């Protein structure tokens, strides 16, 4: 495994400058150019799939199926979506029809922000760097990627391949650790997308840079009436994939106390089916990114006051943590404090769904709330009374793979979105425009020039919006009034026609 070459700190401002100058050159204005670069991201991956799989296996012990499902497939989807939609997303848009404003040609159009920084963590290097890169390019920006130093093989591969496929002046990779990242954050970016949350936000604040962020600790609420086999499979799948290193991974399960045993029995069956020869021998289990993180996770397991029912083993030198399920975990357990980011699932018994909801509400907004239930009312009750980035029923994690569903948090779980048009909009600025012919002043707008006339309201009325109906009984009265008027009008019209025809008022015909 080659060591990761860090970018020299003195080169970092030069890279920033090169990207800025390349952006200012106007090269990215061409839609054709943007589409070409987006397609190239796809080939950067496709032509080298074997090397990417090997790198991710080296860094995270990943099986090719996991790399395909979580990293490659969603990125290919995003490339397809961005490529097919650049024209649509960047074309000028009008405003709702307004007779007054129409002559002034009001429009707005997406324009690039400029030079964008994307900082990714270690868990899904391709998904978290190249997927947003596709929409950043669609928006016309120059892009600098800062992959994680904790995935050296993957980050090195990216640094090698990017300049071979992509425009080398507009798109760059900066590799490094804390000193290099600090240097990167000192510079002025037009947008940043990243993870080391509060630190980045504070650095960004100095430059008034807009930021997109993500953080997590996700609950699962289980309805005792649910198909427990299906629930056990999908919950454990979400917790153990990528060895639990997924921001959307379910962290803890709230289950009615009387149902805990049933759920755990079902989980034991699933566990056996996932790892028929045991997890340590399985080629379907990833590894923790570093010895330090593995040690940290093992520490949390060792401190739990709950009961380990599955797994519990570890070999930190091999970065191996066994997929682990712990029952009877309480709210203040070691496993419920900081985020685990490992394959350890806590089962928290509660009295009922109300206690589950209260438990969730007492904590920071998570990235996702998961409900396992076939009862629509149960699902609605939980979702309506909680707040989260995602609200998924009878599955975990997969929402991130759906093209068009953005990944984004709220509150402590972050702000902004990844994915599709939402990413594109984060990386764009909507520039409003209008074009006002001279004649408009003569016809409507001359009142605006001093000296203002005493009767200016007469002229202004044409531009003033009609207010919504005043809340209270007036609202219904005006609707009734309107209907009443038309009904009366119709009746009068109909009756006079009838009367005329009947000849009753024949003498009046002479007047006509």
């Amino acid at each position, binding site marked *: 495994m080659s060591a990761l070459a860090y970018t020299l700190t003195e080169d970092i401002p030069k890279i920033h400058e090169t990207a800025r100058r390349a952006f200012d050159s106007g090269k990215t204005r061409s839609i054709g150019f943007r589409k070409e670069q987006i397609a190239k991201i796809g080939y950067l991956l496709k032509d080298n799939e074997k090397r990417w799989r090997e790198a991710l296996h080296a860094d995270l012990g990943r099986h090719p199926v996991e790399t395909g499902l979580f990293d490659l497939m969603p990125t290919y989807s995003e490339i397809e979506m961005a490529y097919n939609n650049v024209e649509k997303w960047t074309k000028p848009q009008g405003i709702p029809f307004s007779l007054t404003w129409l002559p002034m040609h009001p429009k707005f159009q997406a324009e690039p922000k400029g030079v964008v920084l994307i900082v990714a963590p270690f868990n899904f290097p391709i998904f978290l760097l190249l997927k947003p890169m596709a929409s950043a390019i669609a928006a016309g920006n120059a892009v600098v990627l800062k992959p994680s130093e904790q995935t050296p093989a993957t980050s090195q591969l990216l640094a090698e391949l990017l300049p071979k496929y992509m425009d080398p002046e507009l798109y760059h990779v900066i590799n490094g650790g804390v000193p290099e990242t600090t240097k990167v954050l000192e510079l002025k970016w037009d947008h940043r997308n990243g993870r080391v949350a509060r630190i980045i936000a504070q650095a960004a604040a100095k430059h008034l840079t807009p930021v997109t962020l993500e953080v997590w600790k996700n609950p699962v609420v289980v309805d005792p009436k649910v198909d427990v086999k299906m629930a056990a499979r999908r919950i454990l799948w979400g917790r153990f994939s990528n060895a639990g290193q997924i921001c959307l991974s379910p962290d803890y399960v709230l289950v009615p106390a009387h149902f805990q045993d049933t759920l755990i029995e079902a989980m034991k069956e699933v566990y056996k089916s996932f790892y028929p020869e045991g997890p340590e021998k399985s080629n379907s289990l990833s590894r923790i990114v570093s010895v330090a993180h593995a040690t940290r996770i093992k520490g949390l397991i060792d401190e739990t006051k709950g009961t380990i029912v599955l797994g519990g083993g570890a070999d930190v030198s091999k970065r191996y943590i066994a997929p682990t399920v712990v029952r009877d975990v309480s709210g203040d357990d070691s496993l419920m404090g900081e985020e685990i980011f490992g394959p350890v699932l806590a089962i928290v018994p509660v009295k009922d769904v109300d206690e589950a909801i209260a438990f969730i509400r007492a904590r920071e907004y998570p990235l996702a709330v998961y409900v396992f239930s076939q009862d629509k009312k149960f699902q609605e009750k939980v979702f309506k009374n909680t707040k989260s980035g995602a609200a998924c029923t*009878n599955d975990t994690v997969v929402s991130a793979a759906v093209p068009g569903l953005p990944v984004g948090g709220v509150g402590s779980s972050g702000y902004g979105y990844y994915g599709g048009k939402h990413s594109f909009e984060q990386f764009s600025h909507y520039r409003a*425009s*209008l074009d006002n012919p001279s004649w408009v002043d003569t016809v409507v707008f001359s009142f605006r020039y001093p000296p203002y006339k005493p009767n200016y309201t007469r002229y202004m009325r044409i531009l003033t919006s009609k207010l*919504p109906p005043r809340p209270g009984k007036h609202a219904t009265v005006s609707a009734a009034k309107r209907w009443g008027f038309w009904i009366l009008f119709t009746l009068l019209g109909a009756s006079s026609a009838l009367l005329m025809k009947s000849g009753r008022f024949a003498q009046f015909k002479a007047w006509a």
Partner: protein
Amino acid sequence: MSLSYTPLDEIPKIHAKARQAFLSGRTKSIAFRKRQIAQVAYLVKDNEQRFKDAMMADLGRPHQETEFIDFGVTYAESRLAYDNVEKWTAERAPEFSPNWFFMKPRLKPEPKGVVLVIAPFNYPLFLLTVPLISAIAGGNAAVLKPPEQTPVFSALLAELLPRYLDPELYHVINGGVPEMTKILELPWDHIMYIGNARVARIIAEAAAKHLTPLTLELGGKNPVIVDPRVDFKMAARRILWGRVSNAGQTCLAPEYVLVPEEAQPALVSALREAYRAFFPEGPKNSASFGRIVTQAHAERIKKLVDETRGTIEFGGDVDIAEKYIGPTLVSNVRPDDPLMSEEIFGPVLLLIPVKDVDEAIAIVNSRDCPLAIYVFSDEKDFQTKVTENTQSGAVMVNETLITVGAPGLPVGGKGPGGYGYYTTKYGFDQFVHLRVSLNNPAWVDKFAFWFRFPPYTAAGAKKLRSLESPLPTRPGDAESTLSKTWILLLATILAAGSSVVAFRALERAPRS
């Protein structure tokens, strides 16, 4: 009338009250939101005279300007939001995808929680009511912080708000720096700040501590680029109008005009004529001209004018005690003049003579990205050249300021001009987060998604690959085989069709 500041220990209580009211869930009702939006409009409509008098007292502002801008924009936004809440908050599905649609992927805009809106002194009414309306439409609770430099207005708003709107959800906090500091210590779910870059940095740093998302609407030094062929009379009127409204205290106001050297004298004449037409008895005696908000600001502007190395063509009259700065035109200004060093935010217009439009564009690009660029020209080429070679929040042809009034046009800055938008759906979007959801039926695992569960197999990997999106054509390759196929098919049909026609024609032809 003196403004009473909110006591410091009241501030956290107000925040707590708003949070509790939000958590009560009553903003979930769309009908409730619509009622509150309508009430914002009536808060203004029922008290128009008092608001006009307040602006006159605080800013010396003529009533027409208050009606046109502060009232007009408030009413337009209330109408737009009222008519569109259902549409904006509706649950929607992402673009159809055959691999995922059966999981019912959906997106729903949900409120962020308790939002803070901070407004500056120049248009304190609409800069508070418009974000308030967007926040209400999104289902949030909101706290407004009006400027302390407009005491009559801010006291009036604090008096009226609890009378018209739900007093637990929506609040006004008044105060100066100590009160602002206290406010910023609290965790808000979103902060919208309209003002200047210096204070924005302080707010952004405070927000970063809580990972609070921000919208920043800041200032800029907005340039005008004049085509010598344009109708100078029209241009002079519209440019001067943009500069003297609200005594120049408009973030969108034109600050400097780039005009070809040989056309400068003609533009000076046209501007002088407009000036005389606007203020036949002189601006100081005119009821159509406002005042500077404080003596300190008036002094600041006076100092800049005193230090200029340009030529004062008209104006230059000042009365600090009256907070009066006369509309002033300075010609022959160079880019390094003191008047170019900061945003003037007063009724002083600068003319910078240039060689040609290229030099004009270069000067604009050498400075921070402005909020708006104004192009005065009837030639499409000229307009396009300027628009495509510059960046700005907005761009207007033959007009100044009014994008703010067009219902549906998002208003927002770029770079040091800020980020995010206010007004319209884009303002609404700032105050909601998109909660994604999906509901995965159990059968999916049997037929489509089985390969995701360990142990991973070669068959599973194959199935996964079959679901991947196809890549776009590799850049540099010949036309894709797909379109080649269509062309071939079409050609075949045409050939077959014409052969049939020819054959039939031959059959019918009389045998000779």
